C-alpha cells in the first residue's frame, strides 16, 4: 500500500497556527513521525489565505524535505501559483493533489502536472458537485483520463480517488465508493487508487473500527493507496493483514517482518 500521511494540513487549526507562526519544529516533527510510521508520501496543505498560500507552501516544502529527504511530497492545493511554487522548490518531483472535473482545476492544475510529469491525484467531481452514483463518478474519471492521456501523462502516474462520503448520512455511501473503486480498477488497470479514508466514519462512534473495516473492503476492491493517519497502529495492522490475505504478500513475509520489527500488533512494553 502506498501510504500518504495526512497530518500536515493547514485547513486544521493546529497546523494553520504553526504555519502562521513559522513553527518549523512542529512541522518537522509531524513529518518525521509520519514517515517513520510508513508514510512514503507526505501530504502538504498550506490551507491558508490565497495571498499567502504560495509562500506558505514553499516554506512547508523546505522544512519537510530537509527533515525527511527520502519522502515524496504531495502538494495539496487548488491554487496553481502555490502548486508551481511548491514544485519548483521541491528537490524530488512531488505528487500533485489534485485534478478534478472543475474547470478551474482543469485550467490550472492539469497543465502543471503534465509539464512536470508529476504523479497526480484525480477526483471524480466537477462543477455540478459530487455524483451520487458510481457511474456518475466513472464518467468524470473517463473524461479526465482522456485528457491526461492526450497530454502524455501515463496512467500509472494517476492516483484516482473514488470519493469517500460519510456512512452516517447515507446507508449506501460505502457501497457507492466500493463500486466506483471496482469499476475504475477494471477500466483503467494501470492507474493507482487512493482515498481520504476517515471520511467514512464522520459522525459515528468508534471511528477507528469503521475506518479499519472500510480499508480492508477497499483493498479487496482494488485500492492500493490511502491518505491516512500513518500513526494509527491498528489501522496499519489491518492494512497489512488485508494485503497478505489478498495474495499481495508472498509467503506472508511483509506481515511477519513487520510483526518481528514490532511495527504492527500490540505495543511491546519496553
Amino acid at each position, binding site marked *: 500500500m502506498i501510504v500518504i500521511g495526512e497530518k500536515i494540513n*493547514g*485547513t*486544521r*487549526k493546529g497546523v*494553520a497556527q504553526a504555519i502562521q507562526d513559522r513553527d518549523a519544529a512542529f512541522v518537522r516533527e509531524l513529518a518525521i513521525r509520519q514517515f517513520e510510521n510508513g508514510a512514503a508520501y507526505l501530504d502538504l496543505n498550506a*490551507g*491558508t*489565505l490565497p495571498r499567502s498560500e504560495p509562500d506558505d507552501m514553499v516554506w512547508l516544502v523546505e522544512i519537510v524535505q530537509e527533515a525527511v529527504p527520502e519522502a515524496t511530497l504531495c502538494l495539496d492545493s487548488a491554487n496553481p501559483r502555490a502548486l508551481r511554487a511548491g514544485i519548483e522548490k521541491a528537490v524530488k518531483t512531488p505528487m500533485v493533489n489534485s485534478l478534478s472535473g472543475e474547470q478551474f482545476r482543469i485550467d490550472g492544475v492539469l497543465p502543471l502536472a503534465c509539464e512536470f510529469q508529476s504523479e497526480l491525484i484525480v477526483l471524480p467531481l466537477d462543477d455540478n*458537485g459530487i455524483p451520487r452514483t458510481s457511474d456518475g463518478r466513472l464518467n468524470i474519471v473517463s473524461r479526465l483520463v482522456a485528457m491526461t492521456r492526450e497530454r502524455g501523462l501515463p496512467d500509472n502516474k494517476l492516483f484516482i480517488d473514488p470519493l469517500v462520503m*460519510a456512512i*452516517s*448520512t447515507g446507508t449506501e455511501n460505502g457501497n457507492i465508493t466500493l463500486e466506483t473503486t471496482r469499476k475504475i480498477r477494471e477500466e483503467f488497470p494501470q492507474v493507482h487508487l487512493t482515498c481520504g479514508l476517515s471520511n467514512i466514519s*464522520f*459522525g*459515528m*462512534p468508534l471511528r477507528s473500527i469503521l475506518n479499519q473495516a472500510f480499508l480492508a473492503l477497499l483493498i479487496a476492491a482494488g485500492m492500493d493507496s490511502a491518505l491516512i493517519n500513518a500513526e494509527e497502529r491498528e489501522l496499519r495492522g489491518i492494512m497489512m493483514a488485508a494485503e497478505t490475505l489478498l495474495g499481495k504478500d508472498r509467503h506472508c513475509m511483509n506481515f511477519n517482518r513487520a510483526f518481528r520489527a514490532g511495527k504492527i500488533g500490540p505495543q511491546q512494553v519496553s
Partner: protein
Amino acid sequence: MQDLVDAIADMMEDDALALTRKYLDQGVPPLKVLDAYKEALGIVGKRFEAGSYFVPELILAGEMMKTASDLIKSQIGSQEQEGGAKKKGKLLLGTVEGDIHDIGKDMVHMLMDINGFEVRDLGVDVPVQRFCDEYKAFEPDIVGLSGLLTLSFESMKQVVDALKEAGMRDKVKVIIGGGQVDEHACTYVEADAWMTDAVAGVKYALEWVESREKGRVP
C-alpha cells in the same frame, strides 16, 4: 403518549409510526401528536450532546418527524395543520464560499425546521454576494454561516462585513458553526455566537427568539 415519545426517542421507527396512527385514529389532535415528536426530539438532542447518539440518530429522528408530518397532512389537510403553527422566526443558512461541507448545516436545517423556524438554505460554497441578495429578499432573524475549513473564517468575515456595509448588521443575529470555530474565529468574523454542533446551535437560536418574544432583547 409517553409510549410514543419513548418509541421515537429510542429510534423504534415501526413502533413510532404504529402509535402515531393509533393516536390519530383515536382522535388526538394532530398538533398534540407533533408535540410528542418535539419532546422526543428534545431527548434525542440531549443524547447527542451526551455522546450516545450520533449523526445517524439525528437523521432518523428527522425522518420519523417528516413521516409523521406527511401522515398528518394527508389525513387532515395542510391548512388545519399549519394553522396553529406560527413560524418562530426565519433563518438564512449556508456553507460559505470555498467550503462544501454540509452535514452539520443540514442537521441545523432539519432541527430548526422541526422547531418551527422558516429556513432558507442556500447550500454550499455560497458567494458573499448571494448571502446579501438573499438576506434582502428573505429578511431573516438569524443568519447561520457554516464552514469546516479554516479558510471559511475569511468568507464568514466577508459576509458580516457586507451586512455591515449595507446597514443590515444590527437587525440580525449571526451565528457561525463548524468543527473548528472558536472564540477567536467568532471575534475575527464579528459574529454574535459560535457553535460546534447543530444541537447547541438550535438551542441557542430558540432561546434567543423566545427571550426576544418576552421583550428581553439580549
